[in-house]
Each structure stands twice: as structure tokens, then as C-alpha cells.
């Protein structure tokens, strides 16, 4: 923050009505409308009577007055904890292997993680139902054929199964953060330990990993929050398994007659809990938060593990096999069959599912288009707003800059379903009357992913030397011009990285969209959920493949354009 402080110490450059002041005010206004207003409305709604509008605590009594509701809360926290720890177990060895060792096939492993990241969790859940359904799942069928046993060992419809699936599609988040952090750890400390006789494993466990502990813990907390917010996998796997979690419980409050006030009351403690979690993390780890460090580091060398190089590769192959290769195979086989329960023989082979999606079903085509366009819009708006917020707060261009920054980061602490409910409360009805429009979904996406944009942009801004901007300002360039001509071009890659990341997570977002989409604003995730009610896995598999393909193409194009790795730096 030293540059920021230096700039702040200069004579005030923000003069009304300069263009930059307008931009700053608009930014602040946008953040207030997107984050503060829905949250305030949510809180107010939780405290008011549904019919009379009077103040009451009754909603809290209803929301927490039943063992089943409290059980959902406890289950959710337990599930999120299990998923987050499991995801760390998947991610950290891979990140370490790719960043620091001579593990075999590092680029392939990285590519595999990127591919996994393109798989929306609800599509992954569908693939795993096909793989590990207790009777019809492929793994169990193969097991029975091989061993002659009466029953297979896997049951996806269980707490373990659900936690496993959530972890499989969340671990890339931890991987990104940890790998980026590891890339920056210089080798000299490791060398010192090695000189003193520590083995490779000891160096890794005692030296390297503790140095990136903030990234590991930060990533794990991020996955924890994602897991609490998740709606798709819990309804696909949790309902048949008899597991009720917060998101499905919130959906219950949202059933007709809609108990919005009770849903709000049920959400508030969750927001408080996650806020406390993030605060604790900051206290424990210092003010490093989720920001990754960017910049150049000292020399780094990869270490060789001997036979461990292959062992680690095998572990990585197993993780990626479970998260990407196996699910992709089963989706391909299922998407190409008429009935997934029957063997993949020729008379069961058909392109009919793809044909239906691409050429017949108007609803699906429309929602693919919606998904891509909303995600493009949300990613763009989010990146712009994130940069503006980061710039305004870093240069303290307005009073209360710290509060603005905190506000922009706070959606980290709000589960997607809660964002949806607060947006519904604030903007669905009059005067905004946005319900059923694509705009409402885009705005909710922008809010949900704003922290990603702000942290990335802040990190980028911090890495810029203030001299460049100061030079431009001294030469008479206005702030806006400096921003447009100096800052944005210099941060082009960082910003594009953030854009790509937000685009990917927007295409897979379900929990925010589920209560906000109307007939003409349905996205793939919502439609998949509706379609999944009927158990037509052949169509769902075909749809999943197309979604992964479509996202992959956009991401590949954007990566080519930015000349940057998809998952690097943007965190």
C-alpha cells in the first residue's frame, strides 16, 4: 500500500466535476446498489412480518424452531468442512508437484486441472451418478462383473459421495491459489534446509508448504464457502440420499407460498458465520487475504523426488482421472446412448440426444445462448467495476475508501442462494421490477464475483510502479486518461485473466440463478436442474458435454487473445 499512501499524500487530484470523480461516484454507487442494498433489504425483510410489515423476530423463531432446519445447518457446515479438506488433499500435492518438483507430466497435470475447472459441479454430479450409482453405476457394474459380488462398493447417494463430488469440482480453486503462491517461493530457504540434511519430503512439509499456508488456508476457506453455497449437487445427490443442507432448506422456504422473510432469517446467521470465518483467517494469517502475490521472485529450482516423481504423477493422474477423464468418458457413452442402463451396443448407440439439443429443443438452445451472453456480460462488467473499485480505493479517491473496498469484498461471505434471495427481495418487484429479465441475473453474477475482480485488480495495481502514473499525471494527463492509457494497458493480461476466471465460474453458477431466472432468462444450470428431475441422464450427459465444449472454446479463444494461461495469477 506504500504507493497508494504516497499518492494520497500528494495534493488532492480529484476535483469535481472532473471525469474521474464521476467515475468514482458511479463506482461507489454501483457497489452500494449491488452489495449493500440487497443485504440491507435482506436484513430488514428478516425482521419484518410477512403480512403486516411490522418489526418482529418471529421469522427467526420459525427459521430455527425446528430440529430439521437446524440439522440442515449443521449438515451443511459439516459437508462444507469435509469437502474443503478433501479438496485440499486433492489440490495441494498437485500444485506442489507442478510448481516445485520434477514430477513427470507437469504440463499434462496442469491441463487436466484446467479441464476439470471447466466442468460445472452439477454436471460433475450427474456424471458421478452415472459412475457410482449403487446398482446401475458403471463402476459398480464393472466391480460386480470382475468379482462376481452381488453388490458394488460405491454409493454416490451418501454423505461421503456428496462431499467427494463437491471436492472433485472445487479443488481447482485451491490448486490455482497454492500453485501461484508456490511459484513465488524462492529456493534459498529450501536449499538451507537441504544443506542441513533434510530430505525432500521434510523440506516440503516443514519449509515450502508452511510458506504458502495463507494460500492453502485461503483456498480451503474459499472451497468451504463454495460448498455451503452449492445447490445443484445437493439436490441431485442429497435428496435421493436423504441429506438436507442449507441451500435445499432455503429452497424449501422459497416454495409456494414463498416464505421470503423466513428464508432471509435463515440466511443471516450464515452470512455472519462466514464473515467471522474470513475475519479469523485475516487475524491468523495477517492481512494477506485471498490476494495472490504477483511480481518476480528470486531463483527457483525444481526438486527431484527420485521414485517419488512417478508416485506423485500417479497421484495426479488418479485425481484428474476421477475429476475429468472418467466423468468425460461416462458422459460420452451416456450421451451417445438411447438408454444409459443398457450396455453400449450398436442398437443402443445414437446421436439422437445431441440432435434434440442442437436442432429441436428451443428451450435448451435458448438457454445455452443465455448462459454464454450473461456470462460474457457479467465477466466484463465485473472486471470493469472491480478495476474501478480497486483504483478508487487504492488511490483513496473518495472518503470511506476502506469501507468501499470491504463492501466490494463482502460477497465472498455470502452464499449464492442468499445473494439470489436478497436480490429477489431488493429488485424483483417494483420499483425495479427486474424479475424474469436477464439483467437481474447479470447483476447478481456481477455481485457474486465482484470480490474476484477486486482482489485481482488490486494485486495488479500494487505490482505497478507508481512512477509511471505519476509521470503521466505530472505531464498533465487527467486521472481518467492515465487510467485508460497507462494502467489498463499495463494490466491488460491481469484483467483478461480475471475476466476469463469470472466467465468460467459464471457459466457454472446455479445457486444465484435458480431463484432469479424467468421463462426467457433461463441459463443452462437452471435448465439442467429442471431436466434432471426426470432422470433423463442421456440428454443431460449430452448437454453437459456441449456446455463444457462451449465454455472451453470461449476460454481457449480468450487465452489465445491474452497470451496467458487460464489459471495463472487470476485469483
Amino acid at each position, binding site marked *: 500500500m506504500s504507493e497508494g499512501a504516497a499518492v494520497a499524500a500528494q495534493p488532492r487530484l480529484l476535483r469535481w466535476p472532473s471525469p474521474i470523480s464521476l467515475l468514482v461516484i458511479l463506482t461507489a454507487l454501483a457497489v452500494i446498489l449491488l452489495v449493500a442494498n440487497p443485504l440491507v433489504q435482506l436484513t430488514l425483510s428478516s425482521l419484518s412480518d410477512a403480512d403486516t410489515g411490522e418489526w418482529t423476530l418471529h421469522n427467526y423463531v420459525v427459521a430455527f424452531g425446528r430440529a430439521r432446519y437446524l440439522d440442515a445447518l449443521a449438515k451443511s457446515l459439516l459437508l462444507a468442512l469435509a469437502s474443503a479438506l478433501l479438496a485440499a488433499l486433492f489440490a495441494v500435492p498437485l500444485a506442489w508437484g507442478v510448481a516445485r518438483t520434477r514430477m513427470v507430466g507437469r504440463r499434462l497435470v496442469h491441463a487436466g486441472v484446467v479441464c476439470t475447472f471447466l466442468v460445472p459441479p452439477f454436471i460433475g454430479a450427474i456424471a458421478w451418478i452415472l459412475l457410482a450409482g449403487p446398482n446401475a453405476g458403471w463402476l459398480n457394474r464393472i466391480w460386480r462383473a470382475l468379482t462376481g459380488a452381488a453388490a458394488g462398493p460405491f454409493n454416490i447417494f451418501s454423505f461421503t459421495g456428496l462431499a467427494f463430488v463437491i471436492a472433485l469440482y472445487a479443488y481447482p480453486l485451491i490448486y490455482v491459489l497454492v500453485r501461484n503462491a508456490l511459484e513465488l517461493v524462492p529456493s534459498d530457504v529450501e536449499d538451507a534446509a537441504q544443506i542441513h540434511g533434510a530430505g525432500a519430503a521434510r523440506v516440503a512439509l516443514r519449509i515450502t508448504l508452511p510458506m504458502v499456508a495463507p494460500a492453502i488456508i485461503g483456498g480451503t476457506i474459499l472451497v468451504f464457502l463454495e460448498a455451503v453455497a452449492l445447490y445443484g449437487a445437493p439436490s441431485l445427490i442429497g435428496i435421493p440420499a436423504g441429506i438436507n443442507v442449507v441451500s435445499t432448506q432455503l429452497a424449501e422456504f*422459497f416454495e409456494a407460498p414463498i416464505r421470503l422473510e423466513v428464508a432471509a432469517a435463515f440466511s443471516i446467521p450464515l452470512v455472519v458465520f462466514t464473515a467471522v470465518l474470513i475475519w479469523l483467517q485475516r487475524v491468523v494469517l495477517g492481512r494477506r487475504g485471498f490476494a495472490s502475490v504477483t511480481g518476480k521472485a528470486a531463483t527457483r529450482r525444481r526438486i527431484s523426488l527420485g521414485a517419488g516423481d512417478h508416485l506423485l504423477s500417479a497421484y495426479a493422474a488418479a485425481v484428474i482421472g476421477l475429476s475429468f477423464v472418467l466423468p468425460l468418458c461416462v458422459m460420452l457413452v451416456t450421451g451417445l446412448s438411447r438408454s444409459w*442402463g443398457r450396455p453400449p451396443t450398436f442398437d443402443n448407440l445414437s446421436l439422437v440426444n445431441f440432435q434434440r439439443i442442437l436442432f429441436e429443443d428451443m428451450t435448451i438452445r435458448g438457454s445455452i445462448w443465455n448462459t454464454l451472453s450473461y456470462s460474457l456480460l457479467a465477466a466484463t462488467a465485473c472486471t470493469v467495476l472491480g478495476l474501478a473499485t480497486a483504483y478508487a480505493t487504492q488511490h483513496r479517491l473518495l472518503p470511506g475508501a476502506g469501507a468501499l473496498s470491504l463492501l466490494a469484498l463482502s460477497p465472498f461471505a455470502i452464499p449464492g442462494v442468499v445473494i439470489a434471495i436478497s436480490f429477489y427481495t431488493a429488485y424483483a418487484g417494483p420499483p425495479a421490477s427486474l424479475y*424474469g429479465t436477464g439483467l437481474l441475473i447479470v447483476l447478481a453474477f456481477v455481485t457474486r464475483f465482484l470480490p474476484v475482480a477486486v482482489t485481482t485488480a488490486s494485486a495488479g495495481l500494487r505490482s505497478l510502479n507508481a512512477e509511471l502514473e505519476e509521470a503521466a499525471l505530472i505531464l498533465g494527463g487527467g486521472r481518467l486518461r492515465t487510467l485508460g492509457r497507462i494502467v489498463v494497458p499495463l494490466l491488460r493480461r491481469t484483467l483478461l485473466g480475471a475476466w476469463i476466471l469470472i466467465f468460467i465460474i459464471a457459466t457454472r453458477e446455479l445457486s444465484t440463478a435458480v431463484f432469479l431466472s424467468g421463462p426467457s432468462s433461463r441459463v443452462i444450470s437452471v435448465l439442467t436442474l*429442471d431436466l434432471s428431475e426426470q432422470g433423463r441422464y442421456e440428454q443431460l450427459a449430452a448437454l453437459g458435454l456441449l456446455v463444457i465444449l462451449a465454455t472451453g472454446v470461449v476460454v481457449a479463444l480468450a487465452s489465445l487473445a491474452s497470451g496467458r494461461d487460464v489459471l495463472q495469477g487470476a485469483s
Partner: protein
Amino acid sequence: MRGGAWLGRTSLARRAGAVARGISRRSLIGSALAATAAWSARAAPSPGLDALYQRAKSEGRLTWYIAHIASEEAEILGRMFTRAYPGVDVAVVRATGQVVYQKLSADLRAGAKNCDVFSSTDLGHYVTLKQRGLLAAYRPLAADTLREPFRDADPSQMTQVTNTNYTSLVYRTVAVTADEAPRRWSDLTDPKWSGRIAVGHPAYSGAMGTWVYQMNKLYGWAFFEKLARNKPQVARSLVDPTTTLVSGERDIGMGPSDLILDQAARGNPVALRVPEDGSMLQNGPTAILKDAPHPEAAKLFVEFLLGEEAGQFAASRHRLPITALVAPKPEIAAPDRIKIIVPVAQELVKGIPEVVEKWRETFGV
């Protein structure tokens, strides 16, 4: 499209219809389509219907919240409608009964006018919607061509039955012989079926909610406590159990009769079992919203759902056609030959939410 005499009559009507409307429509639709038996004209293209079409065309589209048929069929019907009435598109929003009702409630609470035509599976929805004054009354031009007892079934003319079938037992023929298969609903509580049953969820599916209400009435809640001990796989839609059986995941379950017969006819290893303690009549009503953004297109769509083309589609999908102009397939049992449970809409208004709550306590989700 099997069957004898009635087909002759329809093709005659079809020809008459085609002549009446002239050749231009036919060329629009394309020769391939016109050649297939799937295409048929409206029974008697009245001037009233043509005028309605003109008004609907100026609205251009409508949104249909639909629960009582599977999404694939809903999409097909939507496309058939637009083919029959070019210039009027249908946005199909298919989900389970309670989910479409949740969507409608979210619309209403936000004051958003999204839905034109509402087709649920929970009869209770319509009682509530009527009480709140949210439905429009419309006696269809096709009313006189409907089969008994669907003609003027709702004296207020705010709802029309557009779909009818039974909720029946289903079993997987490769795992369960006809002898072993359950004969009555009460057989589902037999411990020998532990881990082998698939059911829907009453909080999602209106038909499932109706079934749970009726079973509770018949056998008391102990029935569900025993059922829960058999650890059924709880899906959401009532369509799901049959697909779950087809996949081989479970062996017995319940589902809409039309779907079971359709799956069996496609060669999938499932068979329908008519429960001795009563097939549950599952009528699917359709209503036009009073504040429908496209009221004329909505009326035209209701005419279409009650018309001959939709009737033939229903017959081809093993359902009893609502229109008297189309005969059902021979295997559709006439209602007087099997024992029927007939739900009462008024009871379901309070009854379904109550059993949903009990279900959640018993099944945990």
C-alpha cells in the same frame, strides 16, 4: 396410430380441414410433414378459431408453465402448436408441479407477468389461484367436442383438463417377475423391497403429493414410516422412478401410466401393474392467467391442447385423449374396468402441504 374406424374418420376431417384452409398453409409446413400421419388439422376450423388465430398472431407468443407431461413431450407439443399456427411461438417452462407453482408464485410476488398458461399436477393450486382471483374464465370453442367427463367439468370455466392418466405401480421385468411384483400399494411396505424402491418427492411433484395424500387417507401415516424403513430412492419428479428403473438402479416404483406404457413399448424392461387398491386418477388441469401478457395466444393454445392434433399425440403416448374426436389405444383401460382413486381438489389445498411437512420429517429431506 393403430386402430380402425376412428382413424378413417379423423383423416376425413383432416382432408376437410386442409381444403377449407387452402393450399398456402400446406406449402408453408412442407410436404414431408403434410405427408406424415402425425400432422392433422383442427377438427372443424371455425371462423371463431381463425379470428382467434389472427389475434394470437398479433401477440406472437406465449409462455406455458407445464408440469403434467415430461419436458420432451412439452417441447414437442410446443413445436406442433407453432407448426399449426405459424407466427405464434411457445416458451415452454417445464418443471414438476410444485416447482412451476413456485415459479408462478415468485412471478406474482414480484408483480412480474410472465406466465400465460399454467398446467400443474396439483389440483389444489387451482383452488387457491381461483380464490385469489388470478384465473381468467374461458369456455373453449372446442368444448363441445370433448370427451365426458371433461366437457364443462369446471362450471366456472377457469380450468380445463388437458391431460389425464393414472398413477400406477411399475416394476423392472428383468429383476422382478410378474408374480413377484407388488399387487397393491400396501405391498411397498414389505421389507423384501428394502433398497429396491424408487419414488418421487411430494414437495416437488404435484402428482406425488396427491398420491401421498391419498395413501395417508387410505392407510394412515404408518404406511410411510414403513416405506421409509425400506429406504426408497427419493427422486423429485414422478417421471424419475420409471427412468430409474429403466437404468437398473431400482426394481419397483410408481409412475404415470402413460410413461410406463410408453417406456415398455420402446423396449425398455419395465411393466405396468394396476394396483388392486386403486389406480390414482391424475387429471392435469390447464388455466389461463387473468393477467396473462398474451391472452389471445393463451386461448388459442388451450384450443390446441383440447384439439384433435393434441388428442392424437396423447393417444400415441398411451393416454386417454381429452377430445372425443380421437379414440384411445385399446390397452388404455376404460375407467369402469379398474378401481380408481379420485382425488378431491378442495382436500388437496391444505392436504398436500400437510403431508409434505410430514414426509420431510419422516424421510429427512
